[in-house]
C-alpha cells in the first residue's frame, strides 16, 4: 500500500500573541488517503482553520511533521511553499476571492500565470475547467455580473485549473443561500466521484454529512474521526 496523501504527526502550531502563547494545534496525528472526501468540523477556535492553512502551505507548523503529496512541508523555504501551493493544492474560499474587473476565464487562468504558461495555454485550460463547473457560457463575464453561486463555481474552476492533488474548501457555502449551497455541494460530490481528494472545512452539519469522513476538532486536537 502506498503512503497516504496527507500524513500529519505531532502537528503543532503555537501563535505568539501579546498576552502569551496560543496553542492552536496541540500535536495532531492524521492520515488522509488519495481520493477521500473529508469534512473538517468544529467550533470556531477549535483549530480547524489552522489545520487547513497548514495543509495548504499558507502557514508553517511550529513543531511536528506534515507530509502532503510527498512533500515534507515543515522544512520548506517560502519559494518552495509557493511552488507547492501552485501545483499541489487548490483553494476555495468562503468569500470567493475573485479578482474584480477580470473575466471568469482569466480568474480561472490566474494560478497558471505563476506556472509560467503562455496566455493561450492558460485560457485553453481555464475553458476546460469552466466547463467542468457548468459555466461555459459565462466565460467573458466579470464577477460583478455573476450570482454568488456562479462566482463560487468560478472559484472552484480556478482551484481545479492547476490539476492539484487536493481541493481545500474553507466554508465554501458560508456566503450562499441553501439552494445555491446544494448546487455547489453537488459539484463537490461529483468532483470527488471523479477521483479528486476533497477536504472541506465547515461548521454546517448538513454540509459535513455529505462527506464520507467527518473529522472534528476541539481545542487543537482531533476529538472524533467518523467514517
Amino acid at each position, binding site marked *: 500500500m502506498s503512503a497516504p496523501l496527507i500524513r500529519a504527526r505531532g502537528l503543532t502550531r503555537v501563535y505568539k500573541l501579546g498576552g502569551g502563547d496560543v496553542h492552536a494545534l496541540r500535536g495532531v496525528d492524521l492520515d488522509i488517503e488519495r481520493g477521500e472526501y473529508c469534512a473538517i468540523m468544529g467550533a470556531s477556535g477549535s483549530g480547524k482553520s489552522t489545520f487547513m*492553512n497548514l495543509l*495548504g502551505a*499558507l*502557514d508553517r507548523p511550529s513543531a511536528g511533521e506534515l507530509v502532503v503529496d510527498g512533500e515534507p512541508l515543515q522544512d520548506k523555504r*517560502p*519559494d518552495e511553499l*509557493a*511552488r507547492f*501551493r*501552485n*501545483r499541489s493544492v487548490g*483553494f476555495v*474560499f468562503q468569500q470567493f*476571492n475573485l*479578482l474584480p*474587473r*477580470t473575466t471568469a476565464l482569466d480568474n480561472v487562468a*490566474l*494560478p497558471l*500565470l*505563476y*506556472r*509560467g504558461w503562455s*496566455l493561450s495555454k492558460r485560457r485553453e485550460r481555464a475553458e476546460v475547467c469552466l466547463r467542468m463547473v457548468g459555466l461555459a457560457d459565462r466565460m467573458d463575464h466579470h464577477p460583478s455580473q455573476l450570482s454568488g453561486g456562479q462566482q463560487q463555481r468560478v472559484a472552484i474552476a*480556478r482551484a481545479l485549473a*492547476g490539476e492539484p492533488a487536493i481541493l481545500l474548501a474553507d466554508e465554501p457555502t458560508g456566503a450562499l443561500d441553501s439552494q445555491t449551497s446544494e448546487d455547489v455541494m453537488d459539484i463537490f460530490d461529483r468532483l470527488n466521484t471523479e477521483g479528486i481528494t476533497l477536504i472541506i472545512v465547515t461548521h454546517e452539519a448538513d454540509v459535513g454529512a455529505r462527506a464520507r469522513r467527518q473529522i472534528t476538532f476541539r481545542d487543537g486536537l482531533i476529538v472524533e474521526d467518523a467514517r
Partner: protein
Amino acid sequence: MNLLAALAVALIALRVNALRSFLAILGVIFGVAAVITTVSLAQGARDAVESRISALGASTLNITAGSRSRGGRQGGAGSGTPFSDADINALRTELDFIAAASGLVQSNVTAVVDGANWPTQMIGANAEYMDVRDWSLSEGRMFTEAETQRAARVAVIGQTTARELFPGGGAVGASVRVNSQPFDIIGVLGDLGAGAFGQDQNDVLLAPVTTVRSRVTGFSRAGVRDPVQQVWVKVAPGFDMELATLELEDYLRVRRNVAPGAQDNFSIRNFADLIRAFNETQRVLGLLLASAGLITLLVGGIGIMNVMLVSVTERTREIGLRLAVGARRRDIRNQFLIESVVLCSAGGVIGLGVGIAVARGIEAFGPAMGLTGLAVSVDPSVALIAIGAAAGVGVLFGFYPAVRASRLDPIEALRHE
C-alpha cells in the same frame, strides 16, 4: 511570471484607476517637463553661441591699442598709441602664421540715397577683412587692396542696409552718400546673421579703411600716420591659437617698444574665449534650473509612493489570493514595482511632450514678451535621460510599497476586509 504578463497586469490595474493614476503622476510630469524645458533652452542658447563663434571664426584675433584694466585704473581699449596701416603691413609680411590681416575704423553714419536715408555702421577695412571674418558676397565684388591704397570711394553694403535703402533692389552700381561723400556700391554682402552678442551684422557699410578714415571719421592721432582703431588677424589654419597669441604678443611688444616687465600697451582678444566665458554663466543658470526640475521630479516620486501604498492596501485580498494560488514573494514585489515604473514612465513621456511644447512656446512667444535671442534645441539623449530618470523615480519610490506588498501574510491578507 514573465515580464510581459506582469506588464499586462500592471496596465489593467492602472487603467482601473485612471484618474488616480493620472493625479499621481502629475508631479512626475511637472518635474520632467521642467527639466526638458530648461535643458532645451540652455542647449539652444549654447548652440546659438557656438554658431556665433564659428561665424566669427575660431581662428580670429582682435587687437586694440591700450591695455586691459587690471588692478588699478588703466587706459581702456583704444587709448594709447593706435595701430596704423604700417603695422598691418608688417604683421602680414613678417609673421608667417598670420593668414590675413586688416585694420579697422568704424563710425555710426547716416547713409543717404535719393529719397531715403538710413542710420548704419560704416566700417573701414582692408581688402583682407573679408578673409579675416570669413564673410562672403551675395552679389558684385569686394574692393581690392589697390583700391584701398588709393582710397577709392567704393563700398560693399550689408543686406539689411541694402534692403532699407534699396527696397526695390539694384544696390550694386548705385551710389550712396555718407557725410556728403558719394560711394559707388560694388557689392552686397552675404547673410552674416547675428553678431556675437545678438546684434544685426547685416546692417553695415564696408569701405576701404583709407577712404573711411579720410572722408568719414577723420580718425587721426598726433604722431601716428594712418591710424586704425582695431587690428583683425586670421591665424593660419592648423596653427595653435594659444601659441599664435603668445608670439603675436612678443612681436608687438618689440615693435611697440614695451620695456621688459612693463605691461602691454595693447590687448589681444580671442573672441571665441570671450563668448564661451559669457556662455558659461548661462550654463550654470541652466544647471540650477534643471536641478530645480529634478527636485520637482523627486517630490513627484512621493506622490507615486503614496498612491502605490494606497493601492497595496486596497488590493490586500488580491495579494493574498495571488500568494495562495502560487505567486512567490518576488512575483508580488515585481508586479507592484512594474506598476510604479510604468506609471512614472508614462509621466516621463507626457512630461517630455509638455516640456517640449513649453520650450517651443517660449521660443515662439518669447520675442513678443521682450525675450530675445532664445533658441530651443531638444537633445534626444536628454529626452531619454529624462524618461529614464522618471522610471528611476518609479523604482526608487515604488520599491517600499512593493516590498510591503510582498511581505504580507497570505492568511491575514485573505481575511482583509
